[in-house]
């Protein structure tokens, strides 16, 4: 059957966002990665009805502020000057003509949508979406609901199509002006004895040619892209549903959409002739120019970063008196913390690695309802590991669990009962008066209210010391445990010169009232806090058996070295010591000192972050800055608890020595890798595969949500409304929104990720060309690849299939004198947040 093939071909093209409770950063155009970046963007623009680059006015503004360099723009223009236009004299002339003649370089033809009434519909989308959404959104939202509505959909066992047919047949004629059309259309199909696939075929071939039928189906599904993507997601991965996925099939949904859209079109165009001529999508106009602007924008940043790195690598390294080492996540948000830790007065050497520390597990926390995924989205968790109370405290745990369950049941009870009739009356009479207390406290002083609540909870529900059941059934075998530790140590180059304390610092984020909480967490732990991983990693690395096995693998960890887990909250900048009862007695004091240093560094990083969060923060005393970030994290009203990965633009894999002298201003992922101790390239492989794809995913997710927040992202946070417990809609009824909110990406500078690896040419090429996805990303220009030579520190860029010295590739790039800060890293040129909040 052809219709089945069409649906199958549509599947990978749909939005891939998970239900929000399991949100992970993705390149939202992952399905188009096999095409070059500009081609993929052109098609995506038509499908998503969104502008795939920033606007012309944005780029012009950047040109004005110098964020786009005139010379760079000229070089970009000259390199790709279309032959149809008279060749400019020089770069200046090219820029001048580009700016004054808006048709110049506009050499990408608009993408054409398949003809038929629905294409018309797509073009005039804003006029006609309302009746369609009014009809279809309640149907699909109530069908997919995961437990928000107390009344479950009675059709969940029978399927979406049965529910759709029932809704069409049982609705009275006056329900909608076009209800008779819809009923007639469906009845014709059912009378003809067509099944769902036959209906799709019939509806599609009525308006599109067999060659374009599949594209037509895809464009139809994209009319409500968020819901279509969610239907596909829950059908193929039912276990990702927050509660229980109903019986689902994308075929049913496509048929329902086709029948509804065509009935609506029939009503709208009663009498008008069907026009099967293709319609150009106006979102794809002028992409040729925007592509060049974007290129120049990225190249300006890249040039400044490389010039700065090149200059700084010539400077002498500061002598350090190292007190401890810290193994931290490669996250760009840790960069400011790392700089603070490395200051001479703290003297902590930092090593960046993947924040899940190589432990690919699902973690079932004590008392949690379900396990959480503790590894990056690009890796499938291999096992589920439980957290158990330490035996001695079992009885206490039983009591506190009973109280906890009672509290949770009460919360649910209040949620459902306050919405019913008579019980709602009782709840509002009793709980209503009490609700003024949290209302006033939580809003007026969020940070302090949280502390009080936390203290009360700890008094009432003492949380027992727990252990992670790694040796139990389904855990890691002893040799695997050694493997995990060895692989992280080897890939990050931490194989010699161990200090007495190695802090293993995971990170997470505290945000309140935030449907997109997962987007702020640790990307390497799929948005969950990384604390279980740092606890488990330290526990494994401290084991005597593991140490013996490490010895055999050639990594000699001195017996006095202890791995101590910590957790850093990137929103509130608090550092918590984990599993303190497991710290060996001989280094308890030292661990306490390290905890103090970490906390100090986090405070310093809080002050640095405040610069972008609060204007005039340079004058803010440290204490106030620190209190401010606390309040931000717990504030119900705060749409910007922290700035997440904003401005991230690069990923550098190499020794920290290459970057330690530069202030990278939280713009880069920093993965530690020591090329000198890795002759075979396996360490590079381990260092890159867990990090670079994640970095690209994050950069692309931010890129798209930033360039057209309404099309690729989910718009302002203010009107968002949680639907079906799966995602958010705007206002009372809309498509399920995908992507990030405007407040999350406001400060972002949208660019593709620039990846630098400090490794010999052949090793980089072997790795990149041998890995299918990396190869696609590099050859399709989804990221820019460069390398730093491990021997002489020279930087090369991958251009046209080979590495060339970067100044040869970008001859126009400026040089910076010592002490000069390139604009891209200078906070004075930031998008400044004015005002008080």
């Amino acid at each position, binding site marked *: 059957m052809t219709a089945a093939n069409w649906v199958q071909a549509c599947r990978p093209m749909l939005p891939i966002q998970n239900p929000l*409770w399991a949100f992970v950063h993705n390149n939202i155009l992952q399905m188009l990665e096999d095409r070059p970046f500009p081609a993929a963007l052109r098609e995506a623009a038509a499908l998503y009805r969104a502008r795939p680059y920033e606007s012309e006015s944005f780029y012009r503004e950047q040109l004005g502020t110098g964020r786009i360099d005139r010379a760079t723009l000229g070089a970009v223009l000259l390199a790709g000057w279309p032959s149809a236009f008279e060749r400019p004299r020089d770069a200046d002339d090219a820029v001048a003509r580009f700016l004054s003649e808006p048709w110049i370089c506009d050499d990408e033809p608009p993408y054409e949508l398949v003809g038929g009434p629905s294409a018309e519909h797509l073009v005039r989308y804003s*006029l006609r979406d309302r009746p369609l*959404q009014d009809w279809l959104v*309640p149907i699909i939202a*109530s069908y997919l609901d995961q*437990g*928000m*509505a*107390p*009344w479950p959909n*009675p*059709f969940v066992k029978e399927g979406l199509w049965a529910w759709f047919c*029932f*809704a069409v047949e*049982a609705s009275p004629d*006056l*329900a909608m002006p076009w209800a008779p059309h819809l009923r007639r259309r469906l009845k014709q199909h059912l009378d003809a004895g067509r099944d769902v696939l036959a209906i799709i075929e019939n509806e599609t071939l009525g308006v599109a040619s067999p060659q374009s039928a599949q594209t037509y189906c895809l464009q139809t599904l994209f009319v409500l892209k968020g819901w279509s993507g969610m239907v596909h997601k829950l059908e193929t991965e039912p276990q990702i549903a*927050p509660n*229980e996925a109903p019986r689902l099939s994308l075929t049913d949904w496509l048929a329902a959409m086709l029948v509804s859209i065509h009935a609506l079109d029939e009503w709208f165009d009663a009498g008008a002739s069907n026009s099967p001529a293709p319609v150009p999508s106006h979102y794809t106009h002028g992409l040729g120019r925007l592509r060049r602007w974007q290129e120049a924008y990225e190249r300006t940043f890249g040039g400044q970063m490389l010039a700065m790195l090149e200059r700084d690598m010539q400077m002498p390294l500061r002598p350090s008196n190292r007190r401890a080492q810290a193994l931290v996540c490669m996250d760009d948000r840790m960069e400011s913390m790392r700089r603070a830790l490395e200051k001479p007065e703290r003297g902590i050497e930092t090593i960046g690695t993947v924040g899940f520390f190589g432990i690919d597990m699902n973690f079932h926390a004590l008392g949690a*309802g379900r396990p959480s995924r503790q590894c990056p989205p690009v890796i499938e968790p291999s096992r589920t590991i439980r957290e158990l109370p330490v035996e001695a405290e079992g009885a206490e745990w039983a009591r506190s669990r009973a109280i*906890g369950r009672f509290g*949770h049941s009460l*919360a*649910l009870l209040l949620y459902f009962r*306050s*919405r*019913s*009739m008579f019980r*709602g*009356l009782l709840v*509002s*009479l009793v*709980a*209503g*008066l009490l609700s003024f207390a*949290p*209302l006033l406290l939580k*809003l*007026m002083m969020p940070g302090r209210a949280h502390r009080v609540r936390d203290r009360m909870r700890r008094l009432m529900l003492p949380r027992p010391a727990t252990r992670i059941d790694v040796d139990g059934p389904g855990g890691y075998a002893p040799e695997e445990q050694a493997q995990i530790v060895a692989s992280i140590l080897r890939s990050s180059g931490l194989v010699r010169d161990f200090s007495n304390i190695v802090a293993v610092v995971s990170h997470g984020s505290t945000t309140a*009232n*935030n*449907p997109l909480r997962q987007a702020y967490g640790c990307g390497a732990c799929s948005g969950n806090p990384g604390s279980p991983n740092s606890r488990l990693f330290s526990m494994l690395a401290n084991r005597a058996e593991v140490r013996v096995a490490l010895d055999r693998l050639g990594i000699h960890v001195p017996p006095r070295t202890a791995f101590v887990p910590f957790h850093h909250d990137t929103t509130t900048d608090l550092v918590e010591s984990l599993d303190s009862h497991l710290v060996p007695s001989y280094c308890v004091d030292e661990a306490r000192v390290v905890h103090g240093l970490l906390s100090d560094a986090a405070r310093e990083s809080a002050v640095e972050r405040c610069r972008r969060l609060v204007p005039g923060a340079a004058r803010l005393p440290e204490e106030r800055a620190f209190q401010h970030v606390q309040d931000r994290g717990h504030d119900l*009203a705060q*749409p910007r608890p922290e700035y997440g990965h904003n401005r991230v633009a690069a990923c550098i894999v190499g020794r920290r020595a290459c970057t330690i002298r530069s202030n990278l201003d939280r713009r880069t992922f920093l993965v530690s890798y020591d090329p000198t101790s890795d002759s075979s390239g396996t360490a590079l492989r381990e260092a890159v595969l867990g990090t670079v794809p994640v970095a690209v995913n994050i950069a692309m997710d931010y890129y798209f949500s930033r360039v057209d927040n309404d099309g690729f992202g989910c718009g*302002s946070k*203010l*009107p*968002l*409304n949680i*639907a*079906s*417990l799966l995602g958010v*809609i*705007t*206002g*009372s009824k809309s498509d399920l929104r995908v992507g990030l909110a405007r407040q999350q990406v406001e400060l972002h500078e949208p660019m593709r990720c620039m990846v630098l690896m400090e490794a010999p040419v052949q090793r980089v090429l072997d790795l990149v060309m041998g890995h299918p996805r990396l190869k696609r990303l590099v050859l399709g220009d989804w990221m820019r690849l460069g390398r730093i030579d491990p021997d002489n520190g020279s930087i090369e860029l991958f251009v046209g299939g080979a590495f060339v010295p970067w100044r040869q590739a970008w001859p126009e790039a400026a040089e910076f004198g010592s002490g000069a800060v390139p604009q891209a890293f200078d906070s004075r040129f930031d998008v400044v947040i*004015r*005002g*008080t*909040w």
Partner: protein
Amino acid sequence: MNSLSVWLPLLLASIALAPVALGACLLLGVRLREGIEARVALLHSMLVLGATAAVLFMWRSTQTRACEVELPPLLQMHDYAWRAVLLVDPLGLTYAVLVALLYPVIVRFSMPSFFREPGSSRYWFLVTMLAAALWALCFAGNLDALFVSWELIGVSSVMLIGFFRRQVRACQNSLLALVYYRIGDFLILLAAVLIHHSFPEHRFSHFDVDAHAPNALMVGLALLGASLAKSAQLPMSPWLHRAMEGPAASSAIFYGALSVHLGPFLLLRTAKLWHEEPVVLWTMGFLGGATAVWATLVGRARPDAKTALAYSTMTQIGIMYLELAFGLHKLVGYHMFVHAGLRTWQYLRSSSLIQDFQDNPVFAASVHLRRRLFFEHLLPERVQRLFYLGAVRLFWVDAIQQHLIVRPFLAVFRCIAAAEDRLLGRPRGGESAR
């Protein structure tokens, strides 16, 4: 008595100052620096809080239950004077305290969330106007004074539904709310005209005497009708869930708390007039009960956070109408107060639900249990399903209104327009919107 008659008008004027100033800036196109409006609103909320406390204090020191302040007449003809009257009594004070408690909370909530939001100046203007209007409404002593505030609250409500004015749906829904509000406003105006026409005394405090005046029943029914629109009771309900287009903060203050509860407030205010009219009581009780049942059924099938709250609010207000019909006026006052607090809290936290359910380990098991417990499982399957479909589709209440009222109404005007075109020899204008 004396201090109130001086201070109440002064306080009222000072509270009205902030929205007037912000509105003037908007009108004149003066762009204030980011954060200035928010600070003005913060000060304004403190002023409202302080003024409420002051009035409360002065009222206590008068040792009377209700005291009236007559403002200078706006219009004087022979022996007839048209003036606004202010009234301070426990009911008005209760509502004023509610306003004074919730308004600062909403302002505090809006400060970070409206930071850098395009159009935030509009929001601050509208929310300060709402607060000033509400405060004035609490102390309105006759229907004329009340009408001004009532109207302003309606205006700010409509404008905030359409706050995201680039979205077609937001604009259409705000228009819909406007239509229902206008019906209510018309009924209040009708009541005011009738009061001036046939009542010996127009002040609320004399309504017990007026209850025996000729048009008392008509006035009672008109007031009931007006209150239905503001509180989204049947048949004027369909706008409330559509009002959820606006930002969460405005949804909370309008539709969780201060604006929707004005219906019961108006009825309590005028209770002396209608509490012995069986027709009013029966209508009130019937509509309230019907709304409660309808909104519960519809709300139970709503799968999204904010409209589900809209329906549960409607349910509780329906119950308040029932309580009013049974004469439980004190209970209504208390119910109104605590319900407003509860819903504000729930609206403001409505974005937390994914987080809450995710962190709640008993969620999955408990939801299955809860979902099995309802009565509809007793019904035959077909009926059960029809009920469910009905609930998802609001039992077609809005469609029926559209069909029976809006379309004939529009058709008439279209006919008139066409006739005019023909008469003047103009070609028919573009295709009229459906």
